[in-house]
């Protein structure tokens, strides 16, 4: 007996290890390695330069760019460069390990949420000098948008800058329930009430981890009352105790309380939220315009409208939030042994991004000499962008990693409906005041 329990319990011990050290499989990643084909074309006597590249593969667009643009065109446009690819959806986690170990890839995808730390560690190259010398900078329509503090640390297509939060809706559902496009926040609330009575989920938005509240919802609920306040917040001039900010938070809470986001909204992932809309389970979908192309192609009755107004200082479409950050894009490691080739590669990558976005009808700031005719909704979106007088950058890109993580964290609670704006201000405002992004 005594022996038996020992073996038995040791067995449990080892099996429970399955739990203790169990896997955390939802951190997704994909990585690929291969070398550029077509080496025959190389100039004789020239050794290929080998570079390591770490890029983001978070969604289908990114994967298409990788497969059909970057890899496909490399041999032709950059002969003599051989790339060891690594693709992942969580570049930040990877870069932490690489940065700490000193083994940085030559070129990597820089994100606003972690780039400041790499720059402060002196590992992300200031590209301003080299792209000014080569004249590459002249291809950008808005050069100021590249600047972070004293230099340029990432090159991107600039497509991000044109992505704005929109409200998508099902024309059929609106019609069947006699609902007009809401132009004020109160009308949005009334429309939601009507839909709830009809047994339809009014709004789909990803609440898990506070995605929607943090990336656009709180900010837009503030700027539909007074865009100037949102602007001041983004510039770090005011904090979350400002009355207009509090009103904005209350607007999120009100929708959550009435159940407009559907039950369990605070735990809905990005994919399922979109699916709720495409499967006609939700009447509206709050999301950035990067989903526009896909929805326009696959949802026959889809329409878009601007954020409704909650005050006299804003009319629908007069102010918009844009997504881009000067730190999002391709960056070069300051420790690279082939800086020159690495910069060339970063330029090439930004151009391939730009080609993809132009081909799919999106606007970019990096001129690659390509044009295309956008689909009707896409065109409407571009027009709306051009007509907006006030363009406000995203609040989350103005936060250091800790602040933005906690912003999302407490943002997710707003989606539960039993968490007030006062709770949020109490929990988050001190963290906002300690934000180091602007230092």
């Amino acid at each position: 007996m005594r022996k038996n329990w020992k073996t038995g319990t040791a067995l449990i011990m080892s099996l429970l290890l399955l739990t203790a050290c169990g896997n955390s499989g939802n951190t997704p990643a994909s990585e690929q390695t291969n070398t550029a084909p077509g080496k025959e074309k190389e100039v004789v006597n020239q050794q290929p330069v080998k570079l390591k590249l770490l890029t983001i593969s978070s969604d289908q667009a990114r994967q298409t760019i990788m497969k059909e643009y970057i890899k496909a065109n490399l041999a032709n446009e950059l002969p003599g460069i051989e790339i060891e690819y690594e693709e992942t959806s969580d570049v930040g986690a990877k870069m932490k390990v690489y940065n700490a170990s000193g083994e940085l890839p030559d070129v990597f995808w820089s994100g606003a949420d972690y780039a400041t730390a790499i720059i402060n560690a002196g590992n992300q190259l200031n590209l301003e000098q080299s792209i000014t010398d080569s004249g590459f900078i002249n291809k950008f329509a808005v050069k100021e948008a590249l600047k972070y503090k004293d230099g340029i640390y990432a090159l991107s297509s600039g497509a991000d800058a044109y992505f704005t939060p929109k409200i998508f809706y099902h024309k059929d559902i609106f019609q069947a329930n006699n609902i007009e496009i809401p132009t004020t926040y109160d009308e949005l609330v009334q429309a939601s009430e009507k839909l709830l009575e009809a047994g339809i989920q009014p709004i789909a938005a990803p609440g898990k981890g506070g995605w929607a509240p943090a990336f656009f919802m709180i900010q837009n609920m503030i700027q539909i009352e007074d865009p100037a306040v949102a602007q001041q917040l983004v510039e770090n001039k005011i904090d979350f105790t400002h009355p207009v900010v509090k009103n904005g938070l209350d607007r999120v809470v009100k929708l959550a309380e009435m159940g407009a986001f559907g039950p369990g909204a605070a735990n809905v992932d990005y994919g399922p939220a979109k699916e709720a809309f495409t499967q006609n389970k939700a009447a509206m979908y709050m999301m950035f315009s990067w989903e526009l192309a896909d929805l326009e192609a696959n949802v026959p009755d889809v329409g878009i409208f601007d954020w409704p107004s909650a005050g006299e200082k804003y009319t629908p479409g007069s102010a918009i939030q844009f997504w881009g950050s000067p730190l999002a894009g391709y960056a070069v490691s300051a420790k690279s042994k082939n800086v020159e080739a690495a910069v060339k590669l970063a330029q090439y990558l930004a151009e391939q991004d730009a080609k993809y976005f132009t081909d799919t009808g999106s606007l970019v700031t990096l001129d690659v000499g390509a044009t295309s005719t956008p689909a009707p909704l896409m065109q409407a979106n571009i027009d709306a962008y051009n007509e907006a007088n006030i363009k406000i950058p995203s609040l989350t890109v103005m936060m250091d990693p800790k602040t933005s993580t906690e912003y999302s964290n407490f943002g997710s609670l707003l989606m539960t409906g039993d968490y007030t704006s006062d709770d949020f201000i109490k929990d988050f405002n001190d963290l906002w005041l300690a934000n180091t992004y602007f230092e």
Partner: protein
Amino acid sequence: MRNRALRIAIRMLLIIIGIFFIFPLYWMLNMSFKSKEEFYVTPFALPKQWIVDNYINAFQSYNFLVYFKNSLIYTAGTLVLILFLGSMLAYCLSRMEWRFSKYALSYISLGLVIPVNVVMIPLFIMIIDLNIQNTYMGLIIPLFAFGLSACVLMLYAFFRSLPKELEEAACIDGCNVYQSYFRIILPIIKPAIATQCVLIFMNVWNEFPLSYILVTKEAFRPLTVGLANFFMEIGVTDWGLIGAAMILSSLPTMIVYASASEQIENALTAGAILK
């Protein structure tokens, strides 16, 4: 009569509870034969239309065979290393006389509570310094180190239950310590080794965090990381494909367990019999 009724009632209860445990298998299988649309309408009912394409798509659209091969190599390598070195250590701790053996046992138990995530960065630096990143050894050695504790603790208990006379007999026969260990002791604990095989297999096959961070090349990634990557690629909305991929990657563990479950039980009871 009352006894029989009671027994039948208990049997029904156990069968129902058992169904509850088999539910994930039903869930995965059912999901894997559904179209994306149907999953959202009736997630738990049987498919109206059985779609086999999910399997074909899952098989084609992610590098199943490469990941599968890698998982096999990592699992087999780790298995051999743990069983070989782990059993030797367990033997040494339980049957050799030295001052620190008790402390060494507690020390090895530390491995049960150290979270992998915490030591990841130093570990990564070490793998690079040793120049074994993106080789099979580069993952097998850390997997071995983290899987060692459980194996040593179990085998320790097993060795303790063996009668002391075994070595004495071996000694009289003129064996040295190595001969006696490999020829006499090791064959005796075969059931425990078999149990460990299954446990280590299931553990390593399902491992995620180490493989995710330490391996950076696609050609060396195991199934778990490939599967997570696949979930991401299809946007966690096409549940049919996800179900098919889940089934494909869980199949090996289920087969290993099904074919070895009797062995496990024998091993467990062997401890009692030996006494």
